[in-house]
């Protein structure tokens, strides 16, 4: 017997978790003497109250879609890729190399190759942890945490010793040449005579992210490989018995995951900064964990959760600008969402299951 209707699992549990997180964050705001209702109004207004706010929201959402999908794909194989941050950093390095060292005639060509470079670098960065997990049984969480830190060191080295132009003090690459600049949503809106999304960083990468959502859906539920990944995640021993190679699935699932995280580089490095800077990823790799958990590892869920976290980040930035609440307020909400949807899932689920069971037995009694 099914314990709960599917919609309760997919919609109700994330929504309840979100409400719990919001209430607790509200209590934190009350504790530091701020008005949570007013704060919420500022956040919502800042995130979706103007087309510029929307532009920022969509820009953040694009980042989180990539990292959320990355975590989700690995989760389907029951592998916890916590290294999205490092993979996204390396993806950015790939983009920077592609944009700086090849004279592209047009942005569309540059975009295609930068996308390939971002995916390749992201996948390569997870290749060693993936290999160690698949062949040596080294815990992927430990190795990917370590690779995040190694990536941070490597990024500083590359910026300082390789990409930094002569005479520049700041550890950052030079600006990318004009032909690699991606059209922003504002540029696209102007074609239709609209002034929407003015001076916001949202750009054409949004559509690549949407395509990636579709591609991940197709991969996981419509291909043989996706089936193998899911069955491996459901039961490793059953998958092995069915002739699925665990080494291959671990490697492939993680390489896809790393490539997706790496793709974030085209949004933040090529689309927004138009050069490679330190801390370009701004923790988006970790937000991917919250996004995947909240989105229940489904691309549609990931899309919605990424949008929500985009609003949170843009709203949080507005909040920090207009009040004395620091931007770290968003990190608290993010932590609570991870806690409730990930670790305390059973706490939210158990009373709900009881409720539905009571409802159902009540109904069957009434029918008799």
């Amino acid at each position, binding site marked *: 017997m099914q314990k709960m209707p599917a919609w309760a699992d997919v919609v109700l549990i994330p929504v309840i978790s979100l409400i719990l997180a919001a209430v607790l964050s509200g209590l934190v705001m009350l504790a*530091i003497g701020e008005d949570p209702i007013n704060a919420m109004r500022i956040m919502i207004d800042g995130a979706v109250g103007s087309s510029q706010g929307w532009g920022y929201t969509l820009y953040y959402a694009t980042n989180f879609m990539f990292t959320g999908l990355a975590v989700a794909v690995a989760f389907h194989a029951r592998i916890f890729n916590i290294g999205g941050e490092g993979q996204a950093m390396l993806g950015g390095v790939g983009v920077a190399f592609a944009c700086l060292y090849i004279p592209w005639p047009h942005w569309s060509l540059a975009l295609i190759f930068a996308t390939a470079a971002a995916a390749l670098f992201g996948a390569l960065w997870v*290749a060693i942890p993936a290999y160690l997990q698949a062949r040596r*049984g*080294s815990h992927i969480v430990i190795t990917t945490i*370590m690779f995040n830190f190694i990536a941070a060191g*490597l990024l500083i080295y590359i910026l300082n010793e390789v990409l930094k132009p002569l005479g520049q003090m700041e550890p950052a690459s030079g600006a990318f040449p004009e032909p690699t600049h991606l059209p922003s949503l504002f540029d696209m809106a102007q074609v239709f005579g609209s002034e929407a999304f003015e001076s916001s960083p949202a750009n054409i990468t949004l559509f690549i992210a949407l395509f990636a959502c579709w591609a991940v859906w197709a991969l996981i539920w419509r291909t043989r490989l996706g089936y193998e990944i899911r069955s491996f995640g459901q039961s490793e021993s059953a998958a092995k018995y069915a002739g699925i190679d665990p080494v291959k699935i671990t490697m492939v699932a993680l390489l896809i995951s790393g490539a997706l995280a790496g793709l974030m580089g085209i949004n933040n490095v090529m689309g927004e900064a138009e050069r490679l800077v330190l801390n370009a990823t701004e923790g988006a790799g970790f937000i991917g964990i919250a996004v995947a958990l909240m989105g229940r590892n489904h691309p549609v869920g990931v899309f919605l959760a990424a949008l929500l976290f985009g609003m949170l980040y843009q709203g949080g930035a507005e909040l920090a600008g207009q009040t004395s609440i620091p931007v770290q307020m968003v990190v608290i909400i993010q932590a609570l969402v991870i806690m409730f949807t*990930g670790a305390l899932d059973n706490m939210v689920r158990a009373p709900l299951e009881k409720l539905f069971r009571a409802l159902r037995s009540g109904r069957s009694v009434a029918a008799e």
Partner: protein
Amino acid sequence: MVSSITDLITGIVGNFFTFVQLMDATVRMAIPLLLACLAGLFSERAGIFDIGLEGKMLAAAFLSAAISFTTGSVWIGLLAGIGASMLLSLIHGVASITFRGNQLISGVAINFLAAGLTVVIAQGWFGQGGRTPSLTGAQRMPEVDLPGAFTRIREMRDASPGMQFYSEFISGHTVLVYVGLLCVPLSWWVLYRTRFGLRLRAVGENPAAVDTAGISVVRLRFAAIVICGVLCGIAGAYLSTAVQAGFTKDMTANRGFIALAALIFAKWRPWHALGACLLFGLFFAIDNRFQNIQLSAFWVIVFLVAASALMMNYARKNERIDVLVLGGISAIFVTIAVSVWISQIGDGVGAIGALWETVKLPTQLIQSLPYILTVVAVAGFVGKAIPPRAGGEPYVKER
């Protein structure tokens, strides 16, 4: 400035006081790692993975500095710090023991919770941009000067080597340093010489067996988590009241993760944890003291080529995937080796002469060494690190 590793060593040994100072810095750097590492040891030995060490230290660092500032007593601050860390520990316990949630995800959440809460509360409380005011006098951990020890650097420099060692290395630390070091034999004794320790280790290997013996798995695991909280609390308080005078945003600077790395490197054993933490502390100390570490190109090349050869030798005897991945890493190593060589040729230096030119090691490489060593340790080509068997798995009682 130091020109090469050999010069570094002769410099240190030649000047005994420099050597003592380096050892002293090593211990200071190692203590927070050691306390957090032992904290993780208790938790993970009981079968609860804990990647939230960082968050617990951070919360403790903040609250101990904040309470120490408001009450004027560092000892009340220390207790508050331990309380903050314990609270997060109990959240982790409720999530991973009571509700059988994913321990790794809970740890991630705790790290973020601490990172966010400390800054938001610090801003609301003190209004100084997410930091506490500077601590002075009795708000800081006092340093213990042992009898007869010199306290001024000028006196120490002129003293005999034995006296230098006594004054700089043995004496002059805060009491938490001695507490941290004492925790090592204490942990060993608790884990290996008491009934509680035996049960704790058993619950991390085979909780069902412990349960069958009529001992509560839940209670044991909560006990381990409380010990973990106390030790992380001391580590955090040490950072904000002894090493520095006050809390600053993200001041733990990944020490919780380095402690985790040390724990794996030590293969979940107390004495080895001390060794690993001292080693990683030495990396910190070297990195702080010597900005410029150089090595002759020859040794860099020999190391890279030898590592490649070993990897290829292993891969050759195994499967295609090994050849592919290890071959790729070897190719990168050899490329780096060749480019190091080529970059030294020129300006009247021939190909052979270039081998003896010195190369500056990137500081980022030194800083990344704890992480790289940990990856090597879990890779298990040399002495594989195997975690407690039941680690990460919530225990479900048979019905």
